[in-house]
């Protein structure tokens, strides 16, 4: 009796195997290892020793950890809230005003200009910004001096009072192009008759923006907010290049804290605990965000 070949209900499932293997190898297995190491004391070499919840208990008491999360909130503001709000206005202005009065070519060029910082490697952008913000001979301070505002000169990245705001400003600049591009794409699919009807009703630009544009591109807003919030919680490169978490920890963020604990302090267990908590927070926020988005879409 010959053995019947194994029949799969969905033969395409086989094609998933390479992707699943890669996902397991690159994401799931290292993540599982990270969780395991977070319950150990380990310096990265030799054998880890089991520590139970000690790293997490330590973390809860660690003022640097909480401070890094407070800075994360600032990063969410700089990388998600502000760019989304400003991006909405910019996208609507480009699409609805510039596009209509000056032609779509100019709108496209301006959109590309806004998107340029997204294309630049963050290390390059960071180094250029550190030159601009340098206390002595930095372009910003020189500019202030040139226009007679020398008294406003600051050590933008070196003074704990200003460093976080400076990094936030750079991140707004970096991030703004992304919502602009997404929202402009979203605006393409809004039925023009809605705007025409609103115009016939005698609405002004702001009223149309508020009552037509915003409700129509709500899905894009959710996606952008979620995407940018996750990016803000994970932010590392910009902080590493601009300030390395300084001065005096005033710009430290969880990912940099985890990195320095791992590699500078060679405290892999503790660094893993930070990374695990950060990942869980991101997963939780993503889940809540997606649920919220689905529910509001269902309600529409």
């Amino acid at each position: 009796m010959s053995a019947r070949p194994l029949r799969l209900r969905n033969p395409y499932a086989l094609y998933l195997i390479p992707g699943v293997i890669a996902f397991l190898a690159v994401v799931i297995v290292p993540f599982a290892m990270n969780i395991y190491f977070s319950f150990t004391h380990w310096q990265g070499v030799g054998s880890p020793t089991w520590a139970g919840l000690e790293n997490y208990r330590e973390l809860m008491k660690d003022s640097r950890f909480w401070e890094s999360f407070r800075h994360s909130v600032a990063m969410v503001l700089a990388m998600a809230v502000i760019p989304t709000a400003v991006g909405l206005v910019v996208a609507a202005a480009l699409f609805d005003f510039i596009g209509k009065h000056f032609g779509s070519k100019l709108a496209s060029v301006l959109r590309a200009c806004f998107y340029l910082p997204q294309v630049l490697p963050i290390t390059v952008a960071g180094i250029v910004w550190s030159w601009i913000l340098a206390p002595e001979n930095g372009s910003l301070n020189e500019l202030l001096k040139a226009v007679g505002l020398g008294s406003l000169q600051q050590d933008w990245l070196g003074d704990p009072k200003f460093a976080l705001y400076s990094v936030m400003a750079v991140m707004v600049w970096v991030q703004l192009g992304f919502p602009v591009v997404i929202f402009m794409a979203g605006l393409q699919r809004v039925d023009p008759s809605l705007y025409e009807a609103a115009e016939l009703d005698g609405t002004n630009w702001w009223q149309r923006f508020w009552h037509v544009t915003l409700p129509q591109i709500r899905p894009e807003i959710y996606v952008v907010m979620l995407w940018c919030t996750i990016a803000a919680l994970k932010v590392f490169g910009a902080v590493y290049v601009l300030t390395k978490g300084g001065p005096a920890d005033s710009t430290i963020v969880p990912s940099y804290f985890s990195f320095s604990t791992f590699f500078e302090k060679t405290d892999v267990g503790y660094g893993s605990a930070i990374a695990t908590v950060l990942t869980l927070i991101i997963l939780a926020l993503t889940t809540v965000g997606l649920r919220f988005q689905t529910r509001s879409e269902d309600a529409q």
Partner: protein
Amino acid sequence: MLKVRRPLALAAAALAGAMLITSCGSSDGGAEGDGKTLKLWHYEAPNSAMGIAWNQAIEEFKKTHPGVKVEFEAKGFEQIQKTASMVLNSSNAPDLMEYNKGNATAGLLAKQGLLTDLTPQVTKYGWDKLLSPSVTTTSRYDAKGVMGSGNWYGIPNFGEYTMVYYNKDLFAKNGVKVPTTFNEFEQALAAFKAKGITPLANGGAEYPAHQYLYQLALTKADRSWVDSFELYKGKADFHDAAWTYAANTLSDWVKKGYIAKTSSGAKAEDAGVSFIGGKSPIFFSGSWWYGRFRDENKFQWGSFLFPESKMTLGSGGNLWVVPKNAKNKQLAYDFIDITMKKGIQNTLGNNGGVPVAAEPSAITDPSSKELIENFNKVSDQDGLAFYPDWPVPGFYDVLVSATQKLITGSGTPDQVLDELQKAYDAGAPTS
């Protein structure tokens, strides 16, 4: 008939594949090599003193070992620092590599059994006869990975130390006397400030600032103080006279304008460039700048040891280490021996490095002569006090953060010393 539940089968297959992938590269325990290849890693720039000397050593090695191939791979400092432990755990370990000295680096690897104990070779080749005691501190590590005693795990070819670099032209132009005492040093700082010049180059975001702090503490310290702090031979008290004086003085120097408040975010490179550019007349930093200053300074300059301080920052340089899993250890020992020979050591000395075993008469360049003489002076009086970030892993970041607080005034000297004490006590080995 075989019945397989589909999702389960897929998951199992995928997991098996993943395990297969992630299990690659495990250690094979360091098989015996063929004696025909020397795999060598280091992270010195080819035009640096070490790079030049070690290239010469490779050529010499090829002559004395015909038929042996040298597989040299240039690495980055960061690359080796961040991945060494993983590489040394694998079968891809080199036969010989340059590595950082100190408890948190070479000490950590030695403690974990990842490095070969070189003690028998040291005796056999007589390397210990060539090195002064304070240079060898960083070569030896005990079972806890603490430097200063125990077996030999690394051999340094060069030394390093800190000094006061000064711009002779700026001193002359502003009528400032070159100081020989600490009092005169502070008078010189005040004289420059009076002329509207910030005298000291500084980088608060990296090591220069905390090297100023440590040097100020060292003016009030002795060997046993250093041993307590660096080797845990006693209690390190950050509120003692030396540290208190250092924090207060550094804070005071900022207030008086000797160090720019705006230097808190500056990097070491910025500090060096401000000296090279003739902006800052004085820069207290390490011998690693010497060659570059010699090449790039467009003015007359000189250096002197920090006035009225028997001790200064410095140590033996980075180490040659032989990984436990090295396949051709004998070749590695032979290469180390060549780098300790007079010819290579003299090359090091004539190219702006600080050799540990050169012939003084063979050093022909006058500025190199001064550099080496000063090192020998410090080394002979047992004045090498290592670096402040060594005792505790991650202490570098703590020191940067603490000195930034002093510079920006966001922390008082007392608060800063508290912070240092807390981090030190948390990281220093107990018992």
